[in-house]
């Protein structure tokens, strides 16, 4: 059927087919404008994460604003007139940025005891550094020692201060989220009415639109802020930080990185293809097919509305690798046939090329797709997406290659084959002579590799540090590090305590007591009586515990307020009556700042807001969260109070942990699928086992390498195993397909090994070489995930090549799984 299709249509009307294919791709390519890159937290969230639901509940209860932080490091003294003037001008400008609601800085934040004053004055006549009668040395002392400000507003050396940009709260987001969750719950319970189904679709659509608009607004806001900051760089060093900025910036970095290094990568690919094949057509054709495939898949993503996330950001590179592999196999095969039958007609050679390569390529593709579809069971949205994207991408690459390659070739004139490049030849040849001459070395090296892999993999750490995404000498790293280490940390972690409801005392029987009891019972639950000594003790204890941890930076809670109150109260703790009074009489604007973010009386909850020092050496996020949980378990009486951790720290950790466990699960699942596929393909258990071993080893090397070099498995590097699998399997299928074909003609293992290595081996060497050299450019990037990605891809390519060209034939020679 395929033969007829090629003979009667594709090769008969090459121009029409090519024109049709190109115009279809270009027309469909209009959808490319709809393609979106979204690295926001939303895309990384686990669909059914209970901690996420809890976080959303907490966010609703404890009103606190999202904020960005600017670290302000003036050249002059922090409180000098010049520095304060610059700060004043800077904050005045920043106030007008769209999206910024208010700004807190050393200029605006209240000074409570510089000098000390009565509570009434404090509450109604708040002073700040802007008041003319403020004593600056007292103010400095207050900033350095006040529990409200120390280590977060200013650093210990008093050379840097934070400017807090409070951002507009996205209330619509919450609304959409609630609507969607309610409808999704019904959907899961299959109680959705047709109208509600329509509503759900609508909500999904408008919610996405809203998120997109918000994302654009955030990007613009950050750009505006940076622009303003740049104007003040003569007088001060300024760094923008905050977790929202990081996720926004990573996307921009990845984008611009891809632009710069992506184009150099294309140039390098052209160079390598030119050197290897020394013919313009063998350069233009692969590049054309790669470009068309990338256009097709990105348009498809735009059409289907699939967003590229941090996790799937590598997928274009993957698509490139797979497409190049397909095309290079075709080129090598064509050249081989052309050399073998120099007088055959062009049409015939092309037909033979396509037909002989269709089966192994199709099998390779089906196997790869089978591998990637296993990602669909991971429950992690971006991973599921990656599965779909890759499966769709591979199919598109296959179709495009098998349409464009033959038609273009037919349209081009047949040319004389130049003499083959000796050097590239020698690599494949070398591998075959290694295989035939080697006695034990291959197995010893394999064993050593396995040991290296196991010992390395056992040291693998699963950590995601956004700060470490950037090289240490970049400005963005320096800025984030300053905020992280000197101004209170980066990733937010909340600890929420829920107190159990108190049992109401039963009224006594005596008449007099009864009357009193009635009077007091009625008012017992009024908010101001909520602050019992017991609760205060627990709050202080937990606060001090969190503060004592070396990985926590800034810790804020109701205890911070109590500590401040104590300083104002001549260093005597506020008693419960005073706290109740404070609660009752505190003006609304202060309640919103110092109470509402930390205390929710209605739900008997208090919140501790901390930021984790992301750049701490040796920080183990999961272990830290486990430690906090277990320490709180021993510290708190569950009859009185229960605790729960929340916020981005927990959410990111959950995601990473489930990514990791899903990696393990999917990897084993992929192996199972591969086993079944290979069994189906080769119909030989021995052959199947051999191919599995050959494919597991490159993955082992990658993990071993990562472990030994302490490269963490993070959101970006965690997909590397999938890549390793995709590339390795591809090589194996092509190899074995050819091996079997040669074996059928001549059942001599050694000769067949030579023949296979020196024919299909070239395609494998070229593919690997092209990708390795092309991707080497990524190691020059400023983004460590890009560096690691480049490095690991190179490693995987090399490992898969060696494994398939040396270990695979060696095992075939040793085990002899085929019968003549």
């Amino acid at each position, binding site marked *: 059927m395929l033969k007829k299709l090629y003979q009667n249509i594709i090769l008969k009307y090459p121009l029409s087919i090519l024109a049709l294919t190109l115009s279809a791709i270009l027309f469909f390519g209009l959808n490319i404008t709809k393609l979106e890159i979204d690295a926001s937290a939303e895309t990384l969230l686990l669909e059914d994460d209970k901690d996420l639901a809890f976080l959303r509940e907490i966010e609703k209860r404890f009103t606190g604003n999202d904020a960005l932080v600017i670290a302000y490091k003036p050249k002059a003294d922090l409180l000098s007139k010049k520095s304060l003037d610059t700060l004043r001008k800077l904050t005045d400008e920043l106030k007008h940025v769209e999206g910024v609601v208010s700004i807190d800085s050393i200029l605006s934040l209240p000074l409570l005891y510089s000098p000390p004053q009565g509570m009434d004055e404090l509450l109604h006549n708040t002073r700040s550094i802007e008041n003319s009668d403020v004593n600056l040395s007292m103010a400095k002392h207050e900033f350095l020692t006040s529990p409200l400000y120390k280590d977060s507003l200013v650093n210990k050396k008093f050379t840097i201060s934070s400017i807090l940009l409070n951002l507009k709260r996205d209330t619509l987001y919450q609304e959409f989220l609630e609507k969607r969750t309610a409808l999704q719950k019904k959907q899961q319970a299959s109680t959705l009415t047709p109208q509600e189904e329509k509503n759900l679709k609508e909500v999904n659509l408008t919610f996405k639109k809203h998120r997109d608009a918000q994302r654009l607004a955030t990007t613009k806001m950050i750009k505006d802020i940076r622009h303003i900051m740049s104007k003040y760089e003569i007088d001060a060093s300024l760094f923008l930080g905050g977790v929202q900025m990081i996720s926004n910036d990573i996307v921009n970095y990845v984008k611009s990185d891809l632009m710069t290094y992506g184009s150099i990568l294309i140039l390098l690919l052209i160079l390598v293809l030119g050197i290897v094949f020394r013919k313009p057509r063998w350069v233009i054709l692969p590049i054309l097919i790669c470009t068309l495939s990338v256009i097709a898949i990105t348009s498809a993503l735009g059409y289907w509305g699939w967003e590229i996330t941090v996790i799937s950001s590598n997928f274009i590179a993957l698509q490139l690798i797979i497409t190049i592999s397909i095309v290079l196999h075709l080129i090598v095969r064509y050249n081989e046939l052309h050399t073998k039958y120099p007088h055959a007609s062009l049409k015939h050679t092309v037909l033979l090329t396509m037909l002989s390569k269709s089966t192994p390529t199709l099998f390779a593709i089906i196997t790869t797709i089978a591998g990637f579809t296993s990602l669909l069971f991971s429950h992690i949205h971006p991973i599921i997406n990656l599965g779909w994207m890759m499966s769709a991408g591979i199919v598109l690459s296959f179709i495009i290659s098998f349409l464009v390659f033959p038609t273009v070739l037919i349209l081009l004139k047949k040319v004389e084959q130049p003499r083959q490049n000796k050097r590239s030849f020698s690599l494949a040849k070398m591998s075959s002579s290694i295989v035939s001459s080697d006695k034990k070395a291959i197995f010893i090296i394999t064993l050593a590799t396995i040991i290296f892999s196991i010992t390395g993999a056992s040291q693998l750490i699963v950590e995601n540090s956004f700060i470490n995404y950037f090289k240490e000498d970049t400005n963005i790293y320096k800025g984030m590090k300053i905020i992280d280490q000197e101004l209170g940390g980066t990733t937010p972690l909340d600890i929420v305590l829920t107190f159990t409801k108190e049992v109401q*005392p039963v009224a006594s029987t005596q008449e007099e007591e009864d009357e009193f009891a009635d009077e007091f019972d009625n008012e017992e639950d009024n908010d101001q009586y909520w602050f019992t000594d017991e609760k205060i003790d627990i709050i202080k204890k937990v606060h001090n515990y969190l503060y004592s941890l070396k990985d926590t930076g800034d810790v804020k809670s109701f205890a911070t307020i109590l500590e401040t109150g104590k300083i104002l109260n001549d260093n005597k703790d506020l008693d419960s009556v005073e706290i109740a009074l404070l609660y009752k009489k505190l003006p609304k604007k202060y309640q919103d700042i110092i109470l509402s973010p930390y205390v929710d009386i209605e739900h008997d909850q208090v919140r501790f807001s901390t930021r984790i020092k992301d750049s701490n050496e040796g920080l183990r996020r999961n272990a830290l969260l486990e430690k906090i949980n277990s320490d709180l378990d021993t510290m708190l009486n569950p009859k009185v109070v229960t605790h729960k951790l929340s916020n981005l720290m927990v959410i990111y950790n959950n995601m990473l942990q489930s990514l990791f466990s899903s990696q393990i699960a999917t990897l084993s699942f992929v192996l199972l699928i591969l086993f079944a596929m290979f069994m189906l393909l080769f119909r030989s258990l021995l052959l199947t086992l051999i191919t599995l071993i050959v494919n597991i080893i490159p993955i082992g090397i990658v993990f071993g390498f990562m472990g030994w070099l302490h490269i963490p498995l993070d959101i970006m590097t965690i997909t590397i195993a999938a890549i390793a699998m995709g590339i390795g399997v591809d090589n194996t299928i092509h190899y074995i397909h050819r091996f079997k074909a040669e074996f059928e003609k001549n059942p001599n293992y050694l000769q067949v090994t030579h023949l296979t290595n020196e024919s299909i081996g070239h395609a494998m060497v070229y593919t690997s070489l092209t990708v390795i050299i092309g991707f080497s450019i990524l190691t020059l990037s400023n983004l460590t995930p890009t560096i690691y990605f480049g490095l690991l891809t190179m490693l995987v390519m090399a490992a898969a090549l060696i494994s398939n060209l040396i270990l695979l034939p060696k095992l075939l020679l040793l085990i002899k799984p085929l019968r003549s």
Partner: protein
Amino acid sequence: MLKKILLLTLIMVFSHGVEEQNIKSVMDTKTKESIKILKNSTLSQKQKEKKIIKIMDPIFSYSTMAKISLGKTWKTLTKKEKKAFTKAFEHKIKRSYIDKLKLYNNQKVMTSSPKKMKSNRIKLTTKIVGNHETYKIINSFFKKKNTNQWYIYDVKLAGVSIIQTFRKQFSAFLKTKSFNQLLKSL
């Protein structure tokens, strides 16, 4: 300001048993006397505190306050325990407010007429006029059985009842700990 209210509270709290028709005038006098003591610069802080407590002590029913604060647990106590608790509680109340005296500075105090809630309850509202806000202090009086003497059993300042606060404290405390531990903590 809050501390100033607490001072006035203290002044109001430590009064002596008084007949119904004299409640307003007695409270007025005691307040004035206390303010005079506070303004007397020849006295030390300690002396001021002692004098003011002496003025206020008799009208303040510590035993009733202790009883209400303890809620239902009161009934379960032996006579000896009740006595010990009352003593500790009295000490606690005095101790916790005494240091607020020094924060008093000239403020206008206005006492309104007592309001009879029922036959044995009267509430007397005093307003303290500060620079920015006026705070209300409500003294709750009860009539001792078979006498015509009225005593303060609670003071509510700016909406916060002192006895209610203690009541809540103790009930939370007793949820997980024993009465003896409570006594010790006082």
